[in-house]
């Protein structure tokens, strides 16, 4: 019995070295060959570095707003709302988001607000918008920035990723960076 325990302990140590150590180092080594060198994809703009895949809070009317986040886009504490579909407090929150959106986006009808723009994502860090969720904000941004709606729609088209499989999406950060290049922040 005792000798079995010792043998199990020795096997544990050597497997620990192998699976936690050697395997990790192999993948770490491979990471140095990957874009971003294992530190995640980044964009550098105006001397600032951003993570392409980590969504940011865009709340100002002059930017394409990102989706609601249960954790306020805290990239050191990801998570969803975990509110159930019949939870009254949750439904009131969605209703409040719809009302706020209508106030900030005059001229947009309620029936056109896409559901993804008033519901929080799973990670709280969703970097993307659907095409519709970006397009619905064009009128507001055009007014705020004095750019033509056509120019904004064209911008959205340019930054829409159309993968072979899976939904089309627009990276909000890339879109807003392009927006700032089109017309520097007021």
């Amino acid at each position, binding site marked *: 019995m005792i000798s079995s325990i010792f043998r199990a302990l020795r096997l544990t140590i050597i497997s620990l070295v192998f699976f936690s150590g050697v395997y990790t180092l192999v993948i770490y080594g491979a990471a140095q060959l*990957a874009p971003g060198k294992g530190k995640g994809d980044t964009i550098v703009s105006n001397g600032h570095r951003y993570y392409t895949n980590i969504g940011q809070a865009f709340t100002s009317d002059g930017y394409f707003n990102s989706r609601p986040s249960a954790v306020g886009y805290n990239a050191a504490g990801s998570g969803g709302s*975990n509110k159930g579909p019949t939870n009254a407090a949750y439904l009131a929150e969605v209703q409040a988001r719809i009302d706020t959106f209508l106030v900030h986006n005059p001229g947009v009808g309620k*029936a056109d607000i896409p559901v993804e723009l008033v519901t929080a994502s799973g990670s709280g860090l969703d970097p993307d918008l659907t095409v519709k969720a970006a397009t619905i904000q064009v009128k507001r941004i055009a007014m705020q920035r004095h750019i033509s709606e056509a120019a904004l729609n064209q911008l959205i088209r340019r930054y829409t990723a159309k993968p072979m499989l899976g939904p089309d999406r627009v990276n909000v950060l890339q879109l807003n960076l392009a927006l700032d290049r089109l017309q520097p922040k007021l």
Partner: protein
Amino acid sequence: MSKELPGIILMFVLTLALAVPLGKYIARMYSGERSWTDKIFNPVERLFFRLSGIDPHKEMNWKEHMKHMLIINLVWFLSGMLVLMTQQYLPLNPDGNPNMSADLAFNTSISFVVNCNLQHYSGETGLSYLSQLFLMFLQFVSAGTGMAAAALLFNALKTRTTEKLGNFYDYFLKSCTRILLPLSVIVALVLLFNGTPMTFAGKDTITNLQGDTVQVSTGPAAAFIAIKHIGTNGGGFFGANAAHPFENPNYLTNMVLMMAQMIVPFAMIFALGYYLKRKKFAWVVFSVMTIGFLMLVIPNILMETRGNPLSAHMGIDMSKGAMEGKETRFGAAATGFWSIVTTVISTGSVNGMHDSTMPLSGMNELIAMMVNCFYGGCGVGILNFFIFIILAVFISGLMVGRTPEFMGKKIEAREMKIAMIVALLHPLLILAGTALAMALPQYTASTLSNPGFHGFSQALYEYTSSAANNGSGFEGLGDNTPWWNISTGIVLLLSRFLPIIGPVAIAGSLAAKKYTPESAGTLKTDSGTFGLMLFAVIAIVAALSFFPALTLGPIAEFFSLK
């Protein structure tokens, strides 16, 4: 939707196409046939055994197998506790995360040893990188343990009479080095080239475009996420699991991770067929599992793409479906698909929050874990299914008035008793656990984050996920309390080891019996009729025992949706 459905079908078909040859490879590996991979792996495994003083050629009976399995699992559990409770003083902790409390370390260590990966912490704030890497080690070896038990089962069902059923350490190590490791390397590489981090640097501080300062957690994630899926473990590196854009950056990685969790459970079914030279039987098993899987997954895809009727009443555009708790890059269809894949298989990773899925989607997720054998986890899926095979053989044997036989061995009272105990243990742990939690609201009421029926579902889900060794959650539950940590910890232990020991004991007892060749009087187990019988037994034993509990939670919530 037009581009989302082909993605889902492709994931399933591709996995199946890869699983058949992988199954053949696994069967050859467990039966000790030579293969070209020997050149690479033999020296590595010899080194393991030399340094640990283990003789991998010494054959064991089933009891010795289980003894060695329990001993080494105990070693892992205790070392896990030690690492988690002292991580603050150990290296590789750039974010300065504190030690775990004793009850949380108890839960976490058990949870990773038993291949469940229930997580009552968030990776960003709860673990050092060293602890993450230790848990990653457990993700390898816990999957290897399940597969070793399945290999013993394969061996025991061979047509001969014996007590010697191979060597536990041999099966275990080969599963880790020859299956889990190479597959994990492939998946990790895909992740790396799609933007998943693999770094030892701590949190990064950046200034957002709007001018806010935020911290971004990173870490050696790619290596971890690969084995988490290949080993059907499911524990996230980050709190949001595979919904996190670092863990699962795009639709391609989503497909790869989905396939990664299906491939070994699929392959094990075909491995059984190749190993016993009963390919048709393997296809019967696969078909029964797939029918059950489709009955759960199709409604979920439909319900999630249709969305929440209560949001629809608000008069907004619902075309993207139930997007609460879901990511734009995956969409509702792929998230609905994942929600069932991860629950029929005991992975438990999520790419969208189950707590926010529609009431009946939540019910299907629960049923998937209550049945717990439509594919099932690495190795243990086959063991769970084996119990139902025994029950089905016995019942159908009695129906036609013949002695029940499986693979030429008589099934008698002893095997039936064990099978019934194992089959009833699962509902007992889930229902008694939930009942206790409801009877003691002073410990649990304040932890339920949703009111009414959904709150009950949260507690039911937690025990179901624990008993199925699944690890997903209705994560709104405030589960880092002594009550949840200790009670689910106990459920985890019982529901891991008894459902391994039970089937293995049956297998051991069958192997020792006299082999009677098939005759005209033998009940054919590789037929559609038997498949139907199997399905009926699963539906009656597993699903119906849970029906009353389901009416109190998700079904009641569904009727309140008006």
